[in-house]
């Protein structure tokens, strides 16, 4: 029993230990300089990441409350990679921040929450994990303590997330009322598609839709992304979103499989709305973070299409796309983090003529944006292609056509940024930026990811083998 416990929950335990270490560090951080702290922390995260790769067990704990298997472990590792990259990128920002340990503690506890959410095998567990991964984020959002926007964003986030979670709970309660169980394993058998169940399911769905910010439950996203510190924004847009998407997929495919016809229609509607609205809003954004927020909303639309394929290929494609999306988006945010940390500039116009002064960063950003737009040879192309292919497997070509045309619209606003960087004349562009080693590493990692993940088939095949 205990050995089981130790083995199956290895990642969670590791993370918890790290959090505790951080606590002690915090207590004794008087004599440690910030730089050393950061070095130590990143080292710990690296250990965590590596540790993740040595756990290959599957099984359940606590009377089916907690489950784990290779796919989940892989997903957790993806999250680890993301967290590591983010922490490396936000080096410059954190160096100057006085609460950096708290930052990490909060972030890692949300990560822990996501772990549990992934592994949750029971609605109660799921709810707990969800809250664990949400509430600290609200605090993180407020981490630019003296910035008005930051606290406004935090407020909006906490209220809306509280609201969504209440609705989620309401849904859960109704579901519980109809079928009398919270266990994922038992739910499918009991589902019969009665209106009340549909009602509760819709409430559940909106809970997810809120987290992955699908239209019309997305409105908090832009404001929060804009207000939050860049590091947190990237965390929100990649890690938490990714985690929820993983869970969403598995829950839909396993737990609510009996309702698949109705949720296919819902996804159909949601994805179209999400793509169109996301794109339309992204068209005219000036603030880079806000722009990326909406672009990520549009991305979610595509992911929903992928999910709607509901077969093994589509699961693989979704996971694969999230990996790529993680690299691309983090690359974009990384450049943004560096720039805003050193110059405090986040508006698109500030990037005019950026290429003249910082060619390398410009190319990285361009690469990231191309990948987000799904342009070969970047990995984004493959991700998009497979997603849409998965979606098309249902033979719903209207959906695919709309999606394909939306990709063109999306391309337009990504190209706007490229245009600003490379073409627009600017007397005094952002001056030459000196990049520290850690962010460099992070960006390098992203670029490698962007280029190699697609052209070489290893990642995809690995995911696929996990699903078999």
């Amino acid at each position: 029993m205990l050995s089981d416990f130790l083995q199956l929950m290895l990642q969670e335990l590791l993370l918890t230990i790290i959090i505790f270490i951080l606590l002690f560090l915090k207590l004794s951080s008087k004599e440690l300089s910030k730089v050393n702290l950061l070095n130590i922390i990143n080292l710990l995260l690296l250990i965590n990441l590596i540790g993740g790769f040595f756990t290959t067990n599957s099984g359940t704990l606590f009377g089916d409350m907690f489950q784990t298997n290779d796919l989940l472990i892989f997903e957790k590792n993806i999250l680890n990679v993301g967290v590591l990259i983010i922490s490396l990128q936000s080096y410059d920002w954190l160096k100057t921040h006085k609460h950096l340990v708290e930052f990490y503690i909060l972030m890692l506890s949300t990560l822990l929450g996501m772990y549990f959410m992934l592994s949750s095998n029971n609605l109660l567990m799921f709810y707990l994990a969800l809250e664990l991964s949400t509430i600290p984020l609200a605090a993180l959002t407020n981490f630019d303590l003296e910035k008005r926007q930051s606290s406004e964003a935090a407020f909006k986030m906490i209220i809306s997330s509280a609201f969504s979670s209440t609705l989620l709970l309401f849904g859960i309660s109704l579901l519980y009322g109809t079928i009398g169980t919270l266990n994922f394993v038992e739910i499918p058998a009991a589902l019969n598609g009665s209106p009340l169940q549909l009602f509760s399911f819709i409430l559940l769905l909106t809970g997810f839709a809120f987290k992955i910010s699908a239209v019309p439950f997305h409105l908090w996203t832009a404001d929060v992304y804009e207000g939050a510190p860049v590091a947190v924004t990237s965390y929100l847009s990649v890690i938490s979103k990714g985690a929820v998407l993983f869970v969403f997929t598995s829950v839909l495919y396993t737990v609510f499989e009996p309702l698949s016809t109705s949720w296919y229609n819902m996804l159909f509607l949601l994805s179209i709305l999400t793509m169109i609205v996301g794109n339309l809003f992204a068209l005219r954004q000036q603030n880079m973070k806000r722009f990326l927020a909406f672009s990520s909303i549009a991305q979610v639309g595509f992911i929903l299409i992928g999910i709607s394929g509901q077969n093994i290929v589509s699961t693989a494609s979704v996971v694969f796309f999230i990996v790529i999306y993680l690299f691309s988006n983090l690359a974009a945010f990384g450049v943004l983090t560096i720039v805003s940390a050193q110059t405090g500039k986040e508006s698109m116009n500030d990037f005019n003529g950026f290429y003249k002064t910082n060619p390398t960063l410009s190319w990285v950003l361009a690469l990231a944006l191309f990948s987000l737009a799904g342009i070969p040879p970047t990995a984004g192309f493959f991700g998009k292609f497979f997603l849409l292919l998965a979606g098309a497997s249902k033979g719903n070509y209207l959906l695919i056509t709309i999606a394909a045309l939306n990709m063109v619209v999306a391309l337009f606003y990504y190209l706007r940024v490229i245009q600003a960087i490379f073409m627009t004349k600017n007397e005094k562009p952002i001056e030459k930026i000196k990049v520290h080693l850690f962010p460099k590493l992070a960006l390098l990692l992203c670029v490698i990811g962007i280029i190699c993940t697609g052209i070489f088939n290893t990642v995809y095949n690995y995911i696929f083998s996990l699903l078999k």
Partner: protein
Amino acid sequence: MNEISINHILFLSTALFFIGLYGLFTRRNMITMLMAVELILNSVNINFVAFNKYLFPERLDGIFFTIFIIAIAAAEAAVAIAIIINLYRSHQSIDVEDATEMKY
């Protein structure tokens, strides 16, 4: 016919739910909004307990869930209030209408 049926309780909880919603949508004071959220949560709690008691008495899932909800609600409220305080520092007000800088 003096014993209370589940319907009454559900009615109560639903009423609570909508009262909470109403408060959330209309109140302009942030703290009040928070209270409204609590109302909704409580309606959920009532639901759980009621279902558990009336429909599935043999297991205690609902009860446990309620307990957890209460706990988490507390945590949530704590964080929320902390944020609101911080917001008050910068905005000198806890009126929702004042926290609308970021739009479009």
